[in-house]
């Protein structure tokens, strides 16, 4: 199920502006990889190149290779729609579909892709909501609008929606930045469970969170404002937080930055 990601020589542009420069790394399957780094260094941009969402932005352009188990996502003839079905995404701000009920939100990906059998949908929706630790809170109100949930519940709804289509990789862009500590804990536990089945990449500004949930951590940085962001190093999380090989990483993690 879970797949390995091999990135080599990847640069991304917004029109004429180069946002990330020449990034190469490997993301191991069935593990959690955390991206950390200062604001504006291109973490979100890089994450979005991993499921071809970057090109949705007007002017968005990518150079380089992203191999998903040996298949280049940017190879000719690759359908971005198929890529996004394989590599799911959870956004920083919860964004449930406002016209749909909780059930329909979770079923959206399946329905929009052509699964319509009632029983099948029901099973998958329940499984996904249980998977996102939300089932007990919403099982009596599946027909209510998804936007009526609290922020943390909405975010878990979005996770349920993303895992319902059974992707092989799950990308999460600061999924907890708008949440309280309890919801955050629920989502961190969830990430721990999900990594049994998926390859997970998570962007976070919270060092403790990166240390708690991830197996490997990548540190991004940028030389100066306006310069493209670069990957500084990627290593076992323990090493990054105890004994990183680059001085800038240690400075950033210990708060002695700039």
């Amino acid at each position, binding site marked *: 199920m879970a797949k390995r990601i091999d990135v080599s020589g990847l640069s991304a542009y917004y029109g004429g502006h180069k946002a990330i420069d020449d990034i190469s790394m490997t993301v191991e399957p069935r593990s959690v990889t955390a991206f950390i780094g200062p604001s504006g260094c291109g973490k979100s941009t890089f994450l979005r190149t991993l499921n071809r969402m970057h090109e949705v932005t007007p002017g968005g352009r990518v150079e380089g290779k992203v191999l998903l188990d040996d298949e280049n996502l940017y190879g000719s003839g690759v359908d971005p729609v198929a890529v996004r079905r394989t590599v799911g995404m959870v956004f920083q701000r919860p964004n449930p579909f406002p016209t749909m009920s909780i059930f329909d939100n979770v079923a959206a990906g399946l329905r929009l892709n052509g699964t319509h059998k009632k029983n099948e949908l029901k099973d998958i929706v329940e499984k996904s909501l249980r998977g996102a630790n939300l089932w007990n809170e919403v099982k009596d109100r599946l027909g209510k609008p998804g*936007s009526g949930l609290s922020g943390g519940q909405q975010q878990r709804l979005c996770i349920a929606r993303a895992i319902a289509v059974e992707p092989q990789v799950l990308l999460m862009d600061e999924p907890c930045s708008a949440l309280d500590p309890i919801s955050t804990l629920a989502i961190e536990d969830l990430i721990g469970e999900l990594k049994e089945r998926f390859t997970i990449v998570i962007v976070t500004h919270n060092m403790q969170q990166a240390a708690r949930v991830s197996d490997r951590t990548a540190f991004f940085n940028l030389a100066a404002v306006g310069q493209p962001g670069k990957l500084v190093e990627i290593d076992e999380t323990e090493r990054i937080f105890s004994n990183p090989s680059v001085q800038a990483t240690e400075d950033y993690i210990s708060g002695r930055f700039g």
Partner: protein
Amino acid sequence: MSDVMTDRRPRAEHPGGTPLPVSLRQARLPRWTPAALALVSAALGTGIGLVGGLDSRIQWGLIAALLFIGGTFALAAGVEGARQAKDRLATSLVWIAFLLAVVPLASLLWETVARGTTVLDGFFLSHSMGTLPDALPGGGIYHAIIGTLEQVGLATLIAAPLGLLTAVYLVEYGRGRLAKVVTFFVDVMTGIPSIVAGLFILSVWILILGFGPSGFAGSMALAILMMPVVVRSTEEMLKLVPNELREASLALGVPKWRTILKVVLPTSIGGITTGVMLAIARITGETAPVLLLVWGAKTINGNPFEGAQQSLPLYVFQQWQQGSDASYDRAWSAALVLIAFVMILNLVARGIARWKAPKTGR
């Protein structure tokens, strides 16, 4: 009012030297002051008008309005301070502007209802003019209602899908030169006078292609007038849909066209429908293209593709032209029906917008 007026507390000295008010409370005029002032100035305006022998009611109103503005400003300046006085001045100006805008509308409605109900009854709604001479009372607008419904319906069938698709193209796909050109032409079309749209269809459809007058010919001209309105309003509604929803859907591996169909359009359908309804309301009252292309008729013609038809605005125009008392009455009643029709459309549009608005569910 003395208790409110003495609320001037001592001020504490800020360390930096600038005084800070100790109290956040402030003297306020009682809530009923503006209403009372309005009554007083209206009475004064009338009094001055009567005494001074001014025969124009407009002058009375102006005097009252000036008194009201001056009075509020002076009173507020004395009691509440300069900032509040300016606030109240602005508020009174806005209210007076509102009244100025409403007065013509209200008097128009009043006039139409008062004159339009004289011959408005079941017979009037269910009969055509037939062979009735225009000077005689009787007759009705059934043929005009049928004509208006068919012409406007056909125009909507043409313009709504075209306008919707154009707007979807402009917002979701349009990049570069083609989109700019389309936007430009939509802008140009918005400014086309209705008589010009009518002349255009007249020259192409009737003079060059040789077809006769028909409801459909009118519908085409009406569609030309309606389309830019639909495009503009739909565009605005689609732009209101947050990009995050599109991205959420795309990130689930949903193709773009399905995203538009299942996420973007349902989210904005309320506003889009309202826009279409308002566009329909706008073309319902058009007379010029109907006059050129549908010609008007006295009898019922249910076939919009063959022969002259009647329509409500044209009926009003023609009855007015006849100039007899009976035809004046019929013109007013038909006008009332036309206004009612447009108003119902507006209400339906509002209902749909409210019903389809994304639910917060909290």
